[in-house]
C-alpha cells in the first residue's frame, strides 16, 4: 500500500522520500529511498528529517516489540531460551511533537473486529498521535491481508469514508485525493 501511495503522489508531482525496511515489493529507481533495518533505525531516520516535510504518511507496520538484549554470538541451543522483549518507540506519536504543522496520515490494521470497533481504534490514534487522517482496515479478511493486491479501507477523521474493495492503486488514488482536499 505504501508503494502505491508513493507512486500516486509522485505521478501527481510531489517531491517525496521513502523510508523503507523489509518489503516484498521492488522499489522503482525513480524514488529517493533511505533503507533501514530495525524499528529504532526507522525512528531515528524519520525524526531527523521530519521537520523538512509537509506530509507524513505512515504505512509501515512497525514491530511493537524489540529485544531487550542482542547477542553478537550464536546462541547455545542445549538449554531452553526465554526471549525478553520491550515495547518499541511509537514513531507516529513523535511526529507532531517535532513538526506540529505536518499533515499526518496514519494506518491502522486491525484483526477480525467490527466496523464500529475499527473506527474507534482509528479515532484513538487521532487523539494519541494527533493524526489528521487514519486509513483503517481489517486484515483478517482473506482478500485484504498484508501483501495482497486489493484492499478495502475506511478513511477516518471527523467523518468516515468507506472505500469498497478495489486495487491498492485505486485506493491510493482515493487516499491522495482526500489528503489533497484537506491540506
Amino acid at each position, binding site marked *: 500500500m505504501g508503494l502505491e501511495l508513493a507512486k500516486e503522489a509522485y*505521478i501527481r*508531482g510531489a517531491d517525496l522520500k521513502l523510508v523503507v525496511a523489509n518489503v516484498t515489493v521492488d522499489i*522503482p*529507481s525513480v524514488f529517493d529511498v533511505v533503507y533501514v533495518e530495525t524499528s529504532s533505525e526507522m525512528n531515528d531516520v524519520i525524526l531527523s528529517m521530519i521537520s523538512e516535510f509537509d506530509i507524513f504518511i505512515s504505512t509501515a507496520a512497525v514491530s511493537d516489540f524489540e529485544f531487550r538484549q542482542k547477542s553478537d554470538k550464536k546462541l547455545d541451543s542445549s538449554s531452553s531460551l526465554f526471549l525478553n522483549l520491550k515495547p518499541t518507540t511509537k514513531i507516529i506519536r513523535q511526529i507532531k511533537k517535532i513538526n506540529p504543522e505536518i499533515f499526518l496520515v496514519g494506518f491502522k490494521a486491525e484483526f477480525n473486529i467490527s466496523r464500529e470497533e475499527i473506527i474507534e481504534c482509528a479515532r484513538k490514534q487521532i487523539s494519541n498521535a494527533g493524526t489528521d487522517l487514519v486509513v483503517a482496515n481489517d486484515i483478517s479478511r482473506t482478500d485484504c491481508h498484508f501483501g495482497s493486491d486489493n484492499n478495502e479501507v475506511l478513511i477516518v477523521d471527523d467523518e468516515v469514508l468507506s472505500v469498497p474493495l478495489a486495487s491498492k492503486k485505486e485506493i491510493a488514488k482515493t487516499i491522495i485525493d482526500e489528503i489533497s482536499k484537506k491540506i
Partner: protein
Amino acid sequence: MIVLCVTGSVAASEAIKLAREFRRNDVEVKCFMSEAACELIHPNSMEFATGNSVVTELTGEIEHVKYSQEDLILVAPATANTISKFAHKIADNPISTLLITAYGHDTPIIFVPSMHDSMFKAIKENIDKIKEEGSATFINPRMDEGKAKFPSKEDIVLESLRAINLHKKD
C-alpha cells in the same frame, strides 16, 4: 494521449512493451517511428501495441502539427542523432519535425537516451544545451552489470505521468 517516438537504437524492441505498459495505465499512445527504427522492429508491432496506426512519414494530414499538442512527446529510445538534431532545431524527418513543432507549442518532451557510452560522451554538449534551455528533459539509463541499460518500463511511465501533471499545473 502521449506520442511515443521510436528511433533507431537496438532498444527499439523495448518500445513495444513500454506502449503496452502505458495502455495498462489508461494512457492512449500514438507512435511515430524513424526509418532506422523500422529496420529494427516492424511498424505492425507498434500498431498492435498501441492500437493506433503508426506514423512513418508526413503526409497531407500534417501529422507533425496534428500530434504536436498532445500531453507529452516521449522519445524512447532516443538516438544520438535525434537528440543532436533537436538540440539544434533541425527538422529533416517526421520525428525531428514533430519535436520542434511540439517545442514551439510548449508541449513537454522527454528523451530516453539509448546509445553506446562513447556516443553519449560525444553528444554531451548537445544534451547540456537542451537541459540549459529547458526544452526537454531526460530519463537516465539504468546502470546494471556495469553497462547503461534502457530504464525499466515502470520508471518511464512514472516519470512521464509526473511530467504531464507538473506541466498541467504550470
